[in-house]
């Protein structure tokens, strides 16, 4: 019936009018408040990360009493459910409706790349507080996007170097999750490893998610390697590590991990034999530096649990933003805010001081950690500290970025296949043994 179609269109049009009227009812965007938006997975299977990021942010905001330069700070939290489409939609909303000054988050690589894509077009300042794809601050870098966290390769380059030079391993068998973040972790590891005299990193990728690793474990050659490195995290890591132990593989090869394999939240689910597992990251939950202890104690008092990396990174993101705003005349001046963010120097960050390089990624400590059992609980303990590690490692940025992007088949497994300019580099790493968490 023509009439019913017309009625339907009218309904649609009316709905549009109603929607249009909603902003009048919504909170007015006072230009007198400073508005920050957090995008994180607050619901769904990754809600633990969203929770950590919320807790870190709120702790920082409370320490600043939700005030900066005499103005109120308004904080918005939007759920991404770890989905790029939803994250972009929420970012749009934060920008177009809530008119935030800056966006903080997100968690995963894919979502980070999606938000980067949108931020490029919209110009909104974004502080990437956990998402690790290196191109966000390298080949795809955009002026208004900065990062206070890390890239996938950043901790793994010194780690690979140390594994080859200190542990003397020459041949590694690596099994990893088949997507970009593990590729980047593998790439960094291979580069450092090969420079220090390693021979080969045989790389096998498995689909995400995988619950049963028996097939992969069955294919590991029983001789010819020095260690196995599991390049994955979350439920995949828990399953792999436990099955690795159950299949008796610990008697064959020691186990190394990627940065998140022995994540604080996953350790409780791992078998006790996981102790001894070694990994590297810009964070270790048992640091004893005064800055970290102060942060940790405040966090424990506020939230009742110890902070994980994601919590600390969001905390420092908020502090970094508010400190940047304090240097500004007018925080509505977007260009000035971006410039201030890019110039960040934060020597008293809980996890260790950092400053942003010219591509707006932090230069900071990398901690090589070992899993130990204390009072029946598994925890990471720092054994070596590597200061001043940049996302480019020891490489010249132009040289690094001229290389192909880390992918399934790049860099090559055999160190002999590396381009010589990637191996013949002046080493800049200092490996400082840690004692008592410093």
């Amino acid at each position, binding site marked *: 019936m023509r*009439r019913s*179609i017309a009625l339907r269109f009218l309904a649609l049009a009316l709905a549009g*009018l109603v*929607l249009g009227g909603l902003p009048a009812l919504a909170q007015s965007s006072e230009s007198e408040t400073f508005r920050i938006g957090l995008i994180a997975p607050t619901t769904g299977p990754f809600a633990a990360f969203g929770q950590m990021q919320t807790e870190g942010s709120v702790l920082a905001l409370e320490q600043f009493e939700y005030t900066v330069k005499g103005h109120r700070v308004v904080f918005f939290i939007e759920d991404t459910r770890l989905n790029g*489409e939803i994250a972009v939609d929420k970012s*749009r909303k934060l920008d177009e409706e809530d008119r935030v000054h800056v966006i903080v988050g997100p968690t995963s690589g894919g979502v980070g790349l*999606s938000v980067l894509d*949108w931020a490029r077009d919209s110009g909104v300042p974004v502080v990437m507080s956990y998402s690790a794809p290196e191109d966000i601050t390298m080949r795809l870098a955009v002026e208004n996007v900065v990062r206070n966290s890390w890239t996938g390769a950043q901790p793994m380059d010194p780690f690979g170097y140390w594994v080859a030079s200190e542990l003397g391993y020459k041949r590694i068998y690596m099994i990893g999750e*088949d*997507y970009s973040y593990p590729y980047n972790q593998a790439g960094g590891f291979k580069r450092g490893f090969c420079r220090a005299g390693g021979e080969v990193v045989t790389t096998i990728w498995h689909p995400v998610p995988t619950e049963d690793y028996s097939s992969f474990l069955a294919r590991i050659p029983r001789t010819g390697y020095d260690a196995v490195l599991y390049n994955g995290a979350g439920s995949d890591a828990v399953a792999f590590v436990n099955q690795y132990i159950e299949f008796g593989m610990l008697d064959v090869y020691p186990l190394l991990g990627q940065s998140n394999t022995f994540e604080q939240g996953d350790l409780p689910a791992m078998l006790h034999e996981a102790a001894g597992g070694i990994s590297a990251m810009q964070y270790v939950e048992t640091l004893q530096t005064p800055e970290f202890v102060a942060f940790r104690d405040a966090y424990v008092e506020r939230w009742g649990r110890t902070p994980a990396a994601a919590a600390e990174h969001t905390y420092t993101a908020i502090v970094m933003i508010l400190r940047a705003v304090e240097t500004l005349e007018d925080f509505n001046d977007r260009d000035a805010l971006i410039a201030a963010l890019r110039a960040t120097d934060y020597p008293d960050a809980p996890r260790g001081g950092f400053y942003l390089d010219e591509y707006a990624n932090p230069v900071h400590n990398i901690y090589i950690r070992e899993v130990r059992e204390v009072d029946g609980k598994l925890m990471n303990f720092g054994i070596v500290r590597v200061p001043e590690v940049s996302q480019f490692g020891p490489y010249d940025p132009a040289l690094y970025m001229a290389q192909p992007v880390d992918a399934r088949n790049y860099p090559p497994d055999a160190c002999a296949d590396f381009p010589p300019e990637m191996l013949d580099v002046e080493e800049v790493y200092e490996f400082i043994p840690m004692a008592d968490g410093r």
Partner: protein
Amino acid sequence: MTARSSLPRTLLTVALVAVAGVVLLSFPSWLPPYYLTTVIRILFYSMLAMSLSFLAGQGGMVSLTQTGLFGFAAYALAILSLHYKLPFPYPLLIALAGTLVVALAFGLISIRTYGTYFLILTLALGQILWAIAQQWTSVTEGFDGIQGTRAPILGGISFQEPANFYWVLLVVFLACFFLLRAVVRSPLGLALRGTRDSHVRMSALGFSVARIRLTAFMIAAVPAALAGTFFVQFTGIITPVTLDLERTVWILLIVILGGVGNLGGTVIGVFIALMFEVVVTRFTDRYLTAMGITFLLLVLFAPNGITGAIEGLKRRFDRRRRGASEVAPTAGPPGRGPS
């Protein structure tokens, strides 16, 4: 229109259509940007929902593969334009053609099944597409998805401008709507409803039930595929999440909300579903539980108006199950009916 419609009534209808048309076309000029964004999302999700609503309502085919086809078209467009760098209009045309080929393959497998079995079969087939998206990393980039797809710039007009994008989408949406409506009113539509009510009888009458259902399946694939291409060009990203189980169920919920078979109702369904999410997530983290409960209540109590069609669908399911026993004795022992 019946002979009873009078001039004043016709004039009123024309006036309503004209007003509605003007309002719709004018959205970009006064609607706040985020609301225009929401309208755009409503339009392409509604196209996807329409494809399911049509199949389920007219054909009794609750195809949980439509979301998979939507995702397939989006992935194809992204891969062809970004990885193979094909210029407009090749990625679009190949993506649409490719989706129709997939629909043909899936259709051939599933059109010989009915009712609940058809539902779970199409669910499994749709999830094959999810599995490929998630695991075939060298082509689809797996878990990360593909970023950077954009609408084209043609002859100086940038379709990345929300207003231009919206107008094209609106035209395509209306075209799909009228296409499906035309099919509903055509002899094919009549035959399709016949197969929904009793495919055994239709077969006995000499109709090729398989061909009718396959044709409907292919026709429904078109709005789903088009919606997918608009989705990826607007959002810029396609990830496996877009075709997963949760999304598939979400579209099903929308179709039920709007009324199974009610094409225009899908718009209302999408609108309610999007608003539901915005409102619920403001109060609780248990958005999914709320969605599940709503789904439950909807199915159990079928509020009047929107879901009257569910009653009809239920009756048709039952009638078809008992249909075999009402047919001539040569059809087999009573009760052994397919469902």
